[in-house]
């Protein structure tokens, strides 16, 4: 069976995970290791009047107790946001200072003010409770609209009125004029609920300072270890880059939350220098809820105008995005360049305008969570398309079809240039797979059982593989978004690939190796993928935004091109043939049309013995490449959800979920389907179960799995997943990316289905049984009144 591109190769990673041999950060245990416990603010907003460490310092096993004054005194820099967004008046964003340990003010519950280093986790936690912090409690604000009201508590002196930026995109006047002249206008207020990412492996860091070498080693739960090293050294001055090794071993899920560099990693590195001990911190789940960057949290008002032929003529959106108490690493880009640029959806819309105000509140920082801005855009568009179809009395699929972009490339009014797609193919495939046309019969049958059955769809598009670097740089990004690869061919013909991407569940070790197998025809087992260690791998940008296939594998392909070219030169020399006649296939290097053949390993060995190389050629067979994409990629698809609601309880069961996606070329369908399953589950979770809830004083009420509803197996259905492929023209393998699609496309499909079932369109996420029941009662009362 083929092990190349398109094959369902079983994952090589699995052997270690199913046997308990995986190595995660918390599994690391060094000699003389100590443990960090953080003293965290119990208040959402307070002035720190004093910290008394004396009792804690005297406790058993305590190696040191440190506060923010000591941290800043040692020159450790503030945590930064790496994407500068400019307000529409030309002013830079208002970024408040964020110290890894707060000094004068705390701004959310969980803000760290001190750290205890002790010889056991229990002793560290016990001593942390003995650190006395004198707080002057201040008024707090948690809601994104309330924080902009006059008289709201001022959170950062740098951001007057708690406004970080007031940004816009598109043509305001033209859009307003188009909507004013529309035959029908759909208007909606839409909230995108705040959720907590919850990778199952809590964040963890193990930092070791070696005084003899002035060298630091950090094991950490990171999606991008090189970016972590760069930021830790260049911006936080924890250690010089060449004296800091960052290793992200097996990473137990990320979903965005493990992109950022958090206070805890900074403090562990610094504390390892202070104590000359290895320092470990592992988050417990409540700390994860309090400190892992949350996702979403938008409130929006939107208007979509249609002409008399049901064509969209204008779309205007006004959004307030809650970024929490501090600006996390990429937080500013999420509600701007990752959100408003996708507001054209799959549709041909001549006029779009979006205004986005990003605000501070006394809540956990908000940053990219699986989909990052694109789910918020998709939810707006697809809730409005469904609502418009209902109000216009037309089939929701046909309203979408009438507005689909049909020709590519397609330039939207909001930056993006869609390069490929076949949106009708996805729509038709999803309708067929869900037996859309047979729905009314199923609705009647459900009614006979006392159940309300509903169906809803969502036609999503997203942008992945954010690039090119020069373009994102011009939009404010502080980094380039290319990827690197090095292909090392060993003398015996086996291959190591060092990639700047890093997996946290995506199966790169399997998928990436398939590309090499496909190229040279050597066994999959003869390829090793190396990632996640800055001492082993050249600088790379890491894994997020569904970029590892489209960008990471493209870098590998570029390096393979160079390896192949050199191998062919060597073979042509050895076989006394023309270089252009050499082909490499099935592990052999041949002269086309002849019986002259060398084994792949013979050519590789020849490169290293260097006994008979072409004149002037260097020995060896190892090539590196950096790949900077020419454009974003645009995965798209159509999701259809069918539900049954119990009218007595409001309980909703998803009875069918169909996904038809276009991801471009698929390397391993088994892994891609798994990505879709997991993405849908997270989207369903947001739509029906999950919400990070704060009370008015800023206390997080959902700080554990007893309070925050994680989707369980019996909350979810099995999924019907299929693909309609148009190849991405922008990268050598034709890949679009698949990691986030499920989380982007599913929430509107779910809410469209439930609102269809209950006959009331006024329903917010998460659609819990109590909310659905209340909406159903409201709808019944309205009908009775009529």
């Amino acid at each position, binding site marked *: 069976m083929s092990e190349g591109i398109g094959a369902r190769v079983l994952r090589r990673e699995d052997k270690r995970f199913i046997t308990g041999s995986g190595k995660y950060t918390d599994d690391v245990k060094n000699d003389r290791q100590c443990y960090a416990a953080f003293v965290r603010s119990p208040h959402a907003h307070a002035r720190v009047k004093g910290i008394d460490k004396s009792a804690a310092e005297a406790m058993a096993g305590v190696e040191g107790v440190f506060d923010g004054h000591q941290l800043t005194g040692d020159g450790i820099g503030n945590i930064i946001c790496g994407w500068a967004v400019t307000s529409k008046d030309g002013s830079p964003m208002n970024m408040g200072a964020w110290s890894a340990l707060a000094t004068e003010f705390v701004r959310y519950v969980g803000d760290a003010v001190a750290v205890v280093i002790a010889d056991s986790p229990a002793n560290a936690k016990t001593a942390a409770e003995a650190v006395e912090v004198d707080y002057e409690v201040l008024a707090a604000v948690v809601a994104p609209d309330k924080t902009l009201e006059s008289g709201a508590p001022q959170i950062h002196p740098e951001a007057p009125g708690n406004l970080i930026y007031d940004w816009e995109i598109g043509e305001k006047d033209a859009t307003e004029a188009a909507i004013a002249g529309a035959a029908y206008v759909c208007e909606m207020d839409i909230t995108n609920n705040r959720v907590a990412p919850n990778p199952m492996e809590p964040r963890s860091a193990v930092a070791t300072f070696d005084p003899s070498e002035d060298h630091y080693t950090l094991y950490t739960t990171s999606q991008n270890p090189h970016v972590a090293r760069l930021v830790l050294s260049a911006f936080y001055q924890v250690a010089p880059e060449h004296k800091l090794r960052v290793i992200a071993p097996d990473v137990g*899920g990320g979903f965005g939350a493990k992109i950022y560099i958090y206070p805890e990693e900074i403090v562990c590195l610094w504390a390892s220098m202070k104590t000359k001990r290895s320092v470990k911190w592992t988050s417990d789940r409540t700390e994860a809820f309090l400190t892992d960057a949350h996702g979403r949290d938008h409130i929006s008002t939107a208007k979509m105008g249609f002409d008399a032929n049901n064509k969209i003529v204008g779309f205007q959106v006004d959004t307030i995005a809650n970024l929490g108490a501090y600006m996390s690493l990429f937080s500013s880009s999420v509600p701007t360049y990752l959100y408003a640029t996708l507001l054209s959806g799959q549709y041909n819309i001549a006029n779009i305008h979006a205004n986005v105000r990003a605000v501070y509140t006394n809540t956990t920082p908000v940053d990219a969570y699986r989909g990052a801005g694109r789910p918020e855009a998709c939810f707006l568009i697809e809730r409005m398309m469904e609502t418009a179809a209902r109000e216009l009395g037309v089939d929701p699929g046909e309203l979408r079809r009438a507005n689909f972009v049909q020709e590519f490339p397609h330039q939207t009014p909001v930056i993006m240039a869609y390069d490929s797609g076949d949106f009708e193919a996805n729509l038709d495939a999803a309708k067929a797979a869900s037996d859309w046309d047979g729905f009314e019969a199923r609705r009647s049958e459900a009614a006979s059982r006392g159940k309300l059955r509903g169906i809803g769809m969502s036609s999503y598009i997203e942008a992945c593989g954010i690039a090119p670097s020069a373009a994102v740089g011009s939009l404010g990004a502080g980094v380039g978004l290319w990827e690197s690869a090095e292909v090392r061919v060993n003398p015996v013909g086996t291959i190591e690939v060092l990639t700047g991407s890093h997996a946290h569940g995506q199966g790169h070790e399997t998928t990436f190796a398939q590309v090499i197998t496909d190229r040279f025809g050597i066994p999959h087992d003869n390829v090793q993928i190396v990632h996640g260690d800055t001492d082993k791998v050249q600088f790379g940008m890491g894994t997020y935004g569904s970029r590892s296939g489209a960008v990471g594998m493209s870098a590998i392909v570029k390096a393979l091109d160079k390896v192949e070219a050199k191998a062919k030169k060597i073979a042509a020399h050895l076989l006394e043939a023309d270089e252009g006649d050499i082909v490499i296939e099935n592990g052999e290097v041949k002269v086309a049309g002849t019986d002259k053949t060398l084994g792949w390993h013979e050519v590789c060995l020849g490169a290293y013995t260097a006994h008979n190389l072409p004149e002037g050629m260097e020995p060896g067979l190892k090539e590196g490449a950096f790949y900077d994409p020419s454009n974003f990629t645009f995965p798209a698809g159509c999701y259809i959800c069918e539900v049954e609601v119990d009218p007595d309880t409001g309980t909703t069961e998803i009875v069918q979920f169909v996904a038809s996606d276009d991801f471009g070329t698929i390397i391993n369908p088994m892994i891609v389907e798994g990505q879709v399953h997991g993405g849908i*589950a997270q989207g369903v979770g947001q739509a029906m179960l999950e919400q990070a809830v704060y009370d008015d004083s800023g206390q997080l009420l959902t700080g554990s*799995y007893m309070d925050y509803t*994680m989707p369980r197996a019996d909350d979810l259905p099995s999924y019907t997943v299929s693909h309609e492929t148009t190849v991405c023209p922008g990268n050598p393998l034709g890949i679009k990316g698949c990691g986030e699609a499920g989380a982007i496309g599913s929430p509107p499909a779910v809410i469209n289905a439930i609102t269809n079932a209950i006959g009331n369109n006024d329903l917010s996420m998460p659609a819990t049984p109590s909310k659905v029941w209340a909406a159903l009662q409201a709808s019944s009362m309205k009908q009775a009144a009529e």
Partner: protein
Amino acid sequence: MSSLTMTVNGSEVSGDVEDRTLLVEFIREHLRLTGTHVGCDTSQCGACVVHVDGKAVKSCTMLAAQANGCDVTTIEGVANGDLHPMQTAFKENHGLQCGFCTPGMIMSAIDMVNRKGKDLDEATIRSELEGNICRCTGYHNIVKSIQDGASKM
């Protein structure tokens, strides 16, 4: 302090631990069997499931001292030979992604078969997985894995 002796994965082990030591801490920190994971503080996630005297137990919810004299099996000791059929089924059905919840899932799945038999329907498996959380797979392939593994046990 408590002195403990128990059988873990077929071998007798002993140690002196603080009374407050949890079974999962004893397994991970004292025995250095790190396949058993901790994913929450409140006994919901199931990443720490081991077998104690043949029954699935959340090892974050049991003191090490309570397991004194018991027969404990962790993910490292579940195979009789290369792989347990349930381990193989998780690999063959792509029942895992990041792998963090996987040891607990496999230990719970084996216990499920021990209690419910080999012929498990989807609804039963989903209901029985109430105490195990996965964030990666959406459970679709975990359910398939357990059905497959059960039939081969």
